[in-house]
Every structure is written in C-alpha cells, then in structure tokens.
C-alpha cells in the first residue's frame, strides 16, 4: 500500500465500503504516514463541514413568491 493507493481508495475508506483486508492495509499505512493521515483527516473534515452546514435562510421575497405560487396552484387544482 503506497500513498497513491491511499488516495485512490480514500472515498471508499471514508464511506466504509472496503473489505476488512484493504481497510486494515490502509490503516497500517496511516499509522506510519503522517501526510496521508492528514489528507484522510482533512477530507473527512471537508465532508463534515459541508454536510453539517445549515442552508442560509430563504430571502423573504423569494419565500413569499414560492408560497404565492403554491397557493395559486392549489386553488387552480381545487377549482
């Protein structure tokens, strides 16, 4: 297992979709390679930051137009 292989398998490792042998080989490499460990750690952090980021509040005018469009549509459907 070398650094290039680690990067190739990085997504599968973070998604826990590797078989146990490959996972063990990666973790063995990570124990000894600080750079790969940082890449794994910071990539995981990147995903976490995006995954946990709250969407900005909807601008009030955008929200009003959405709800007006819905009401209009629902009235038409019911008529």
């Amino acid at each position: 297992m070398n650094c290039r292989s680690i990067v190739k398998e990085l997504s599968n490792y973070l998604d826990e979709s590797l078989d146990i042998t490959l996972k063990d080989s990666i973790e063995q490499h990570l124990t000894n390679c600080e750079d790969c460990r940082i890449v794994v750690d910071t990539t995981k952090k990147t995903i976490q930051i995006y995954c946990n980021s709250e969407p900005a509040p909807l601008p009030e005018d955008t929200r009003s137009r959405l709800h007006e469009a819905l009401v209009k549509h629902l009235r038409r459907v019911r008529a």
Partner: protein
Amino acid sequence: MSTSKANPLEARPIPSQVVRDDEPVLVAAAKGGEISAFETLVSRYERKIFRLAQNITQNREDAEDVMQESFLKAYEHLSGFQGNSRFYTWLVRITVNQALMKLRRRRPNVVSLDEELDTGEELVPREVEDWGPSPEDRYKQNQLGEILSSAIGDLDPSFRIVFQLRDIEELSTEETAEALGLSVPAVKSRLLRARLKLRQKLDKYFRRSEIS
C-alpha cells in the same frame, strides 16, 4: 510523504438530521388532501431545496424558478409517490431534474454529466498541512457560508452536483447514479475528485498555519 505515528481515522462523516420521524405522516396527510401538511413539508425543505438549486444552476433567479417548479411538480405527482424512498430523496430527484433542464437550456454546450472527464490531474495532494481542531469555528457563520459556497461554486458542474447529492443531500451512490443517469463507477470517480478538490480549496482557509 513523511512518516510518524498516530491513530488512523475510523469514523465516517456525521449525517445531518434531514429526515424527521413525522415525514411519512405528513406525506400521507398531504396525499389525503390536507394542504397544511404539504405546506409544512415545503417550509421544512425550502431552504435546502433552494441551496441545491442554486448550487446546480449557480444563478439565483434560476434557482428560485427551479424551487417553485419542483414543489409544484411534487404536489402534482404526490399521488404517484409510493414511499419506496424518503420523500426528501424524491423531492431532491425532482429538483435535480428541473435544475439540469434549466442549466442545459441556458448553457447547452457546457453541461454534460455522462462524459467521462479526463482531468489529467495528479490526485495525490502536495504540501499537506493539518487543519487543527474545529477549523470552521475560526469563521463567523456568514463568512463560512461564503467560503463553502465559493469553493463548491468553483467546481466543474459534473463534480459539484455529485458532491452535492452524495455528501450534502446524503443520497446513496446508487441513488445519485440514478438521479443523474450516471454509472456507479462514474459517480465514485467524480465524488473522489470533488472531495479532493474541495479539500484543496478549503485548505488555504483552514490550515493550522492560518491561525493568527
């Protein structure tokens, strides 16, 4: 790469709490004609759907159109929703279709998700540096939002949309492939590149040496 000892990572990313327990109840009520139940679903997901539409179209006006069209389409086809997936996943699929149609109408020669991209790039990152704990806490909420939005906006659309669906909307690889009409290997390949590119883009804000 250099060598030293430490524990390998083991946990996967923390999932967001996008689905609440009452979602099936609300969907059933909306299907039964209870408009307020559908309005609750709209209020619950409007921000996420708008962000999704904006991240795909990269245009606020288009994103607003896409959001409206998606909710109206969802309401129209609600009776056909069988509950085989989460309502939110179904809504995301509708939004992606609407957004891609909009994007292709605007820029027909730019967006092609089904081509295999040969970036010719070296995937192994260079000049690696640790970020330290909770790097995102170094920024105010609105600053962080701008950093994240700008970084993802710089990605090629075919990377950006895959990352958005897999890592922000938390669709499975298979659901993402189905929503985008891509093969599973193509989704995996784009996801890896998107994650590495975003890591690289965020690196300049989050690396430990940036702490003042």
